[in-house]
């Protein structure tokens, strides 16, 4: 027993090692599987790289603990240097980085939901700022070289080092406390507390094991036990830490909990906005009058859907989709700021931010207005944008829509008594330059259709 304590190779070491490897694999699976299985597009920006960095940090932390306990340190090889593993990879690149990522995420949540505005500082800047103390202390230790031949530091050093570790845990708990009264939509808070509970407990055991491992070098059973505990708890910590979801409502909903929840196609459905979207219900078909202003017409769900299809076909759909989602945003009562903020943030990420997946064509000023807004739940948050886009749709798309196949199809569905008159009207626009449209005058269907239209429609309505 004494031999394997110093040389390594105890059965408990193998168990601990395999647990560490398994937890690493689980971690990787958890991070990538939702994307692979459900084919969700990879998120952009901070929500992607914060998670990626966390995975990396967890990996570093585990690796450093393994190295610390099972690697023979020699001065000759720089990569076997004690300071590389015990100081740099464990601290600034491991534990420090992991906790800093978490704090950054909670900081974002705090700003968005408590302060109701977008964070004033880019998350990568924030992350590097709070990582600075770690880098500084690592550099300090590196210069003072207090580690002994087994890569352990004395009691004098253990206390401040553990203090730094604890400080970040406390900061994490403090931020979580600050957001606790926000009623999150997707159980983020519950997850958060659960995660913190598990990680606080494991950190407790971990710290104890770490301290024992560092201080008591003479008792062999203690050494074996502590290093076993250290590695196992690190694995648990890393896994537990990753498992609680922060601010990724849609992805976690769509992927991880598919069994408990229905699949949500849109943010508004996930938020439980009733009567939402054009996907659900049929409303009584009303007559569509091309002379009415577009903003009135778009309130009609059938018209909106048809118009959306048309806009999509000429690669200009994002404005209509934006309109649709802002309608959902407006439906959330003003007394429910949390849901409004979710929706607002979703809209900003999808349509407003520069480089967003469906970025809309708006001016710099209007974009900045929204991004620097003081209240994300405000009723007029998207008012100016909507105004500008409504103009864009009116001047660009509306005219071409009336001569498109999509309008023809809509009209066919809608039993219009004035059909003959309308067709006359429509064929006045004898040219529609959009990709999707067909010349009205040489539309092969038009002439045959008009006399038969009523008959056709009766079949239509039967099918409906």
């Amino acid at each position, binding site marked *: 027993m004494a031999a394997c304590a110093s040389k390594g190779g105890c059965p408990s070491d193998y168990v601990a090692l395999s647990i560490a490897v398994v937890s690493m694999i689980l971690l990787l699976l958890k991070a990538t599987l939702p994307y692979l299985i459900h084919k969700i597009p990879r998120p952009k920006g901070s929500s992607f790289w914060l998670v990626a960095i966390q995975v990396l940090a967890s990996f570093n932390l585990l690796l450093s603990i393994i190295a610390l306990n099972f690697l023979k340190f020699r001065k000759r090889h720089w990569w076997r240097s004690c300071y590389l593993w015990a100081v740099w990879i464990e601290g600034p690149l491991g534990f420090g980085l992991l906790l800093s990522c978490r704090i950054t995420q909670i900081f974002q949540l705090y700003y968005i939901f408590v302060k109701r505005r977008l964070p004033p500082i880019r998350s990568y800047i924030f992350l590097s700022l709070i990582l600075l103390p770690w880098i500084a202390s690592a550099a300090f230790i590196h210069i003072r070289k207090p580690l002994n031949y087994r890569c352990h530091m004395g009691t004098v050093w253990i206390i401040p080092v553990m203090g730094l570790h604890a400080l970040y845990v406390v900061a994490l708990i403090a931020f979580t406390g600050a957001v606790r009264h926000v009623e999150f939509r997707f159980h983020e808070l519950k997850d958060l507390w659960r995660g913190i509970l598990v990680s606080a407990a494991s950190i407790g055991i971990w710290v104890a094991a770490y301290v024992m491992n560092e201080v008591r070098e003479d008792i062999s059973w203690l050494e074996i036990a502590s290093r076993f505990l250290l590695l196992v708890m690190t694995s648990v910590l890393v896994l537990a830490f990753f498992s609680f979801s922060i601010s990724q409502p849609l992805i976690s909903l769509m992927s991880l909990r598919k069994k408990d929840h229905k699949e949500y196609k849109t943010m508004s459905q996930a938020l439980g906005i009733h009567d939402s979207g054009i996907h659900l219900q049929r409303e009584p078909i009303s007559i569509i009058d091309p002379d009415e202003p577009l903003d009135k017409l778009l309130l009609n769900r059938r018209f909106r859907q048809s118009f959306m299809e048309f*806009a999509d076909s000429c690669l200009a759909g*994002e404005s209509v989709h934006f309109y649709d989602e802002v309608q959902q945003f407006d439906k959330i009562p003003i007394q429910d700021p949390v849901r409004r903020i979710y929706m607002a943030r979703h809209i900003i990420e999808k349509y407003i931010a520069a480089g967003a997946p469906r*970025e809309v*064509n708006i001016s710099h000023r209007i974009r900045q207005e929204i991004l620097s807004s003081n209240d994300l739940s405000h009723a007029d948050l998207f008012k100016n944008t909507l105004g500008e886009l409504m103009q864009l749709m009116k*001047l*660009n798309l509306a005219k071409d829509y009336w001569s498109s196949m*999509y309008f023809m199809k809509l009209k066919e569905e809608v039993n219009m008594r004035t059909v003959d008159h309308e067709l006359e009207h429509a064929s006045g626009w004898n040219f529609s330059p959009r990709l999707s449209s067909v010349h009205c005058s040489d539309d092969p269907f038009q002439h045959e259709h008009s006399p038969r239209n009523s008959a056709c429609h009766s079949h239509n309505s039967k*099918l409906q």
Partner: protein
Amino acid sequence: MLCVVLENMGLLCSRNKGYNQADDEENTQTADIERRIEQETKADKHIQKLLLLGAGDSGKSTIFKQIKLLFQTGFDEAELKNYIPVIHANVYQTIKVLHDGSKELAQSELEASKYLLSAENKDIGEKLSEIGGRLDYPHLTKDLVQDIEALWKDPAIQETILRGNELQVPDCAHYFMENLQRFSDINYVPSKEDVLFARIRTTGVVEIQFSPVGENKKSGEVYRLFDVGGQRNERRKWIHLFEGVTAVIFCAAISEYDQTLFEDERKNRMMETKELFEWVLKQPCFEKTSFMLFLNKFDIFEQKALKVPLNVCEWFKDYQPVSTGKQEIEHAYEFVKKKFEESYFQCTAPDRVDRVFKIYRTTALDQKLVKKTFKLVDETLRRRNLFEAGLL
């Protein structure tokens, strides 16, 4: 592109089939469509695909409108009247931009007083700015025109328009403000010129088919021209059009060297155009595509070059003015042209050197010039085709 149309046709057709008793009639119809599709794909092979590319507000759509006027039926009265709301919207938007701009300048500038509106115009300004922010603009009445004119003539607004390069004032501002009276007329029908000046930010893709020779399609090439939006968010859609392009007409507004982008006011428009031009040149799809560079908005450039030195733009910072007047304009233009040429040859890999590259000086508003330019473009492309076929 045609696929979309055909798909829809198919959709409509198959759905009808389900509940139409007159099957025979349906069959003939289907056969009809199939024949049409065949014909169209056959015809498609002879059609040359042209793309209008360029940054936002570089004049792509104006060129597009010119083509419609020159080589197609043009605009009939109904179509001209379609532009009334556009023109009215331009007027309201312009006055709002100027009013809000003067307010902002009055707050931030040292010589704030010259941007302060006179007392009687202040209320008018607020009212017009409110209208400019609405979803629906009211009809441009005589009263409104009077208000707008009063505000336009206010020294503060005139002072503001001198700073127009910082404010996203559309190029058509002067023209529209000088013609306000006409627009408020009940029987107003926009002239060709009004239509050309009207500014719509294009979104998505628009296409047109034409033949530069005119009605007699047999003698000339047939072109299909695509117009696109130029703002950053629009550019991601371009890629859908990149296949099988005969020629890219790249519009660069050379008068924009002191302006910032509509979608990002931290970025100089000319720098953006340069980067965009280089990005387009490097596209793998365009290995054999001809490039027609339109150095557009020469009319504005002519006036600006004498007032605003070219070197305010980072790209032109090594520019040295040599003389004055017309000579200086020529010199400035040649300098800009050279810059674009350099950029072209830098971004054209050695294996692509045999693609055609031509630079034209254009003013998209000038119908004669555009016509002449297109004749030249047509000639170049035809010669290129003959060359490709080994006939030359």
